[in-house]
């Protein structure tokens, strides 16, 4: 009784199962639709497309001079892909391999 009275906020209650199912469903669908699978159109995953696009915006092509990866990293993180830089370096790395996964 004391405990209940202490709860002045009138906090909402929700079953854990319901909350978790919804959270995990949203996460899974996001990953499936927007992260993990390459698009049919160009064979790129969203993060790869963002990197490629950012590089083309910076005028970096196969023919141009070598540039530090940090320049692209900064652009991609700031403009298109709001996640950490480590992830981005890994993605760039994967993109450079002959058979990207």
């Amino acid at each position: 009784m004391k405990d209940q009275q202490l709860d002045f906020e009138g906090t909402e209650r929700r079953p854990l199962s319901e909350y978790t199912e919804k959270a995990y469903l949203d996460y899974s669908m996001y990953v499936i639709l927007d992260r993990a699978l390459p698009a049919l159109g160009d064979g790129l995953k969203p993060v790869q497309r963002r990197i490629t696009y950012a590089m083309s915006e910076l005028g970096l092509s196969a023919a141009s001079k070598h540039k530090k990866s940090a320049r692209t990293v900064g652009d991609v993180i700031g403009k298109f892909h709001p996640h950490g830089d480590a992830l981005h370096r890994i993605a760039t790395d994967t993109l450079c391999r002959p058979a990207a996964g």
Partner: protein
Amino acid sequence: MELFSTRRAPYTGGGIAVNPARQRRRFAMIRAARIPGSTRDLMAQSYNAADIEVLSGLEPVRRRPGMYTDTTRPNHLAHEVIDNSVDEALGGHCNELAVKLYKDESLEVVDNGRGMPVDIHPQEKVSGVELILTRLHAGGKFSGDSYKFSGGLHGVGVSVVNALSKHLECWVRRGGKEYNIAFKDGRISSKLEAIGTVGQRNTGTTVRFWPDPKFFDSDRFSVAELKRVLKAKAVLCAGLRVSFENEATGEKQEWFYTGHLGQYLSEQLEKAEALPAEPITGRHESAQDVVEWALAWAPDIANVVGESYVNLIPTTAGGTHVNGLRSGIVDAVREFCEFRNLLPRGLKLTAEDVWDKACFVLSLKIRDPQFAGQTKEKLSSREAAALVETHARDAMGLWLNQHPDAGERIAQYAIANAQERIKAAQRVQRKRAVNGPALPGKLADCTNQDPARSEIFLVEGDSAGGSAKQARDKDFQAIMPLRGKILNTWELPPGEIGSSQEVHDISVALGVDPGSADISGLRYHKVCILADADSDGLHIATLLCALFLRHFRPLVTNGHVYVAMPPLYRIDAGKQVLYALDNAERDQQLARLAAEHSRSKPVVTRFKGLGEMNPSQLRESTIDPRTRRLVQLTIDARDNTENLLDMLLAKKRAGDRREWLESKGNLAEI
């Protein structure tokens, strides 16, 4: 209390009904299109524009009554009609409201307001009264001019009553004439016609309806509930004479209050001894809002009276207005104690000390109230907290200083509570950092030692953790930042989860060993998950839920696990910054901004991460108990939680997950 919910927010956009199986199919087609090499050839199945049904008129209500009203009994319909009349009273056009329940379970509501409009609507080419009764989302409440404060904002209102009644008759007295219009099963059966003359000053509306039993679990009105609602309306609407007559029992009752909430509160407290004997009341009115409250302490009462209303609609779960009242009163009492040097050395009054057994009635009238929670019984308008708080603090401070004797008694009462609390806390002293294993370095602990008052926030990301540290109230809120995603511990034995640094730190910070049934060492009674409102945040929340359920189950069963809901959107309009927790709230805010000033265009940005907010914004939106939204997670032996989480997180159940995604993927909101 009863469900007023549907009046405030229609659950869906209405209109379009799509068969769920069909949606699944459509989703499957999207999958097929997106996944190269898919062998599914679903294109052959037809799904054309012709397959989409659009329901028109009142059909959606009749098809899915549960989305618009409470279908356990027809009471909610009565509320709709009564609220319509009360809205007239709120506008000052009506001072009498008579409700009569007939033997045939039909209900008649008579008011002496202006009468529903009978002239022809310029665009719709039908009379106003017909429009009100037959169209969803029709009403005079949107523009903000016809009605100053209105409970039902969405105007689904009384047309729902018509849709769910086998017969409805409406009489309007207006401009010296009496008109009648009748409906059967939501369709017009007798056109609007003048049936007689009345005095020029005799105006008003009478609605009598026969609810259709096929839509309701029970076709009988709950008389007790009706009476309670009518009484509340009379209490809150000063000068409105409300009467109720039950034809079956011959019972008659009338309520009439002259606008004194204190009188009502005394009545509610009955014989319990109240401090002060005459409740303290306050009232504040401006063009934008009206706050009215009455307050008294009743130390011996078993059931504390705490009623709050927004625009005459009960908010049973409280909300920002109640929080505002509480902090205003608490501040005033604290100030009073300080001013008079009443506090013993070293003693601090907490909100609980002051607010214990405080009985109150609070009525707030504001424009465009926002409600939260699944049942929409909680006010979430943030400005309400500040509004009520400022006013309550001033009024209470004034009262205390004008009645120093009673004020000192109140202060003594609060001090006694505080001393008792401290004594109790000494008995269960929280394990100090020095006796246990060293607390994790990342944990920013709170200063007070009482677990019952302490909260810990498990925050996603170091940067958000930093802001949260600045945003918290150091006294009772601890912050523990988590870096990246935590280990999936669902299938690990309790002994092994310590191998993950993050999980180990959580366990140490909480003061509970994994897998242990003993939670007496729990250092915080509120464990709040605070993750970004994006997909990765949801993932982290899922993993934490799994951790708690599997290895710290007693925390969940005892209701110690909470999820903090960060806002999804930020709306910048000129210098104003607003937050919206979800799409519905965003649209509401935008609509309001559009109505307020059209010059600066509001810009909506999506909050990607908590780290983007600066500490003051974070405090206001997610951490400060007065304005945040916290959801307690519960489990029930019957709801199959174990099995569900196993399906979501076990390594071997990928097949089940695939099936789950195929059947429910369309419900995801990204």
